[in-house]
């Protein structure tokens, strides 16, 4: 039986050149708190960038794969999504 790999272990395989400021912005934490019981971005984000912390959304932009799912999938259009500055962000070495 193979050992199941966690998202943290997966992310450890990826090279990131993180910028000092985030390219992802949750516009209003209050919308997450009051209108979004599922906090669905914390589920479908492939890098587990979004983590709900009691009253606010923590955005670990440093590990973002820049796929765009959160921008499209947020049911309240509550995420402002930009590309990281040129040269920053994820750096795929292989695939």
């Amino acid at each position: 039986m193979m050992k199941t790999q966690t998202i943290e272990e997966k992310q450890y395989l990826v090279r990131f050149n993180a910028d000092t400021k985030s390219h992802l912005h949750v516009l209003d934490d209050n919308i997450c708190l009051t209108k979004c019981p599922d906090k669905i971005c914390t589920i479908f984000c492939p890098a587990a960038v979004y983590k709900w912390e009691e009253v606010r959304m923590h955005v670990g932009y440093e590990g973002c794969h820049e796929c765009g799912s959160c921008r499209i999938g947020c049911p309240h259009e509550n995420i402002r999504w930009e590309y990281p500055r040129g040269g920053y962000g994820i750096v795929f070495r292989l695939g």
Partner: protein
Amino acid sequence: MPEKFDCIVVGAGPAGTACAYELAKAGVNVLLLERGEYPGAKNVMGGVLYRKMMEDIIPEFYKEAPLERPIVEQRFMMMDKESAVTFSYKGLEWGREPYNNFTVLRAKFDQWFAEKAVEQGALLVCETVAVECIVKNGRVVGVRTDRPDGDIYADVVVLADGVNSLLAKQLGFHREWRPDEVALATMEILKLDKNVIEDRFNLEANQGCTIEIFGDATKGILGTGFLYTNKDTLSIGVGTLLSGLIKHKIKPYELLEYVKNHPMIRPYIQGSEPVEYLAHLIPEGGYHSIPKVAGNGVLVVGDAAQLVNAIHREGSNMAMTSGRLAAETIIMAKEQNDFSESMLDQYRMKLMESFIGQDLKKYKDATHHFERFPQYFEQYIPMMNRAASQMFTVDGSSKWEKQQKIWRDLGSTKQKFKLARDMMKAWKVMK
């Protein structure tokens, strides 16, 4: 003094690079912008690159490009919990010139391809984001980049900025994609000894195999898993519509682990070591989601224009051909010094006449159909597995009895009619 080019191509993926290559070859002064550290740094693909469309651009590229393996076998697994019905075609003609397709690792391939465009005379500038198109008097006249004094001007701008397609959206060519117009794919590259790969997949040196996995790879929701052989790595991944992940509240990396640990898949990858994890969106809206692709001074190519045939996992080939057709159109426009929408719209016509428009039209309702009616993946694939198991298990009951059991397993008369109707409908959307 602002910089001015004949053409700016935004994005050095297969679409943008193909376009820049063809333009540079024809003597057009072209700037190829890439936001990554190098071309390919932001790009992900399961890994199948098609020979024909690449060779339309660079003949005999396979003699020097960094490729993994030419594919000689394509398998399709209809997978249940602990069984699978598998179809396959293996043909050694695919293992020699002119070849059919190859597995590639995009970070290597895209860099090589972009270097080829540079050899033709394109100017490649990396680590630069085009944040918006500069529009004057209703025409695109350049792009604003994130560099200081970063406005660059051109007669025509080609948007090859990938699936997120932010620039075409800003221009109003399409609205934001819906979650059922994009698939989220996660994938891993697994290191495995070359000889072990060849033994497990029944290959000789310099032969490759692709496996597409339907059914339990995605726990019944619409999508596919895949397992492709590279030289000394495997690419394993799973993609589902974003809407499916949302509806079923599934974490994509857990689904990937589910596939990796599935008893039908695990033996292929046993003992391998993960070396990279990647996630990316695939545009899967198909024909109905193709946005406006030509405007005054601007064209849209590749993923940015939703040019993917999800049913046949073709995308990079459509990207390259769309880039090439855009270049042809621009060369013609340059001769007449007319970059208006009515001139550039010839690109759209070329696109629709080509295999791209034809194939996307053929499957225009397929994805939506299978998304709307989940029974194909949820019920019919397990049913197919039960039927195969019943028919091939020798247990002393006669073949007549077995056929009757399979028939009964299809359900009541009403359910059988529904099944027949569903098969007819599936045929209709695929034919």
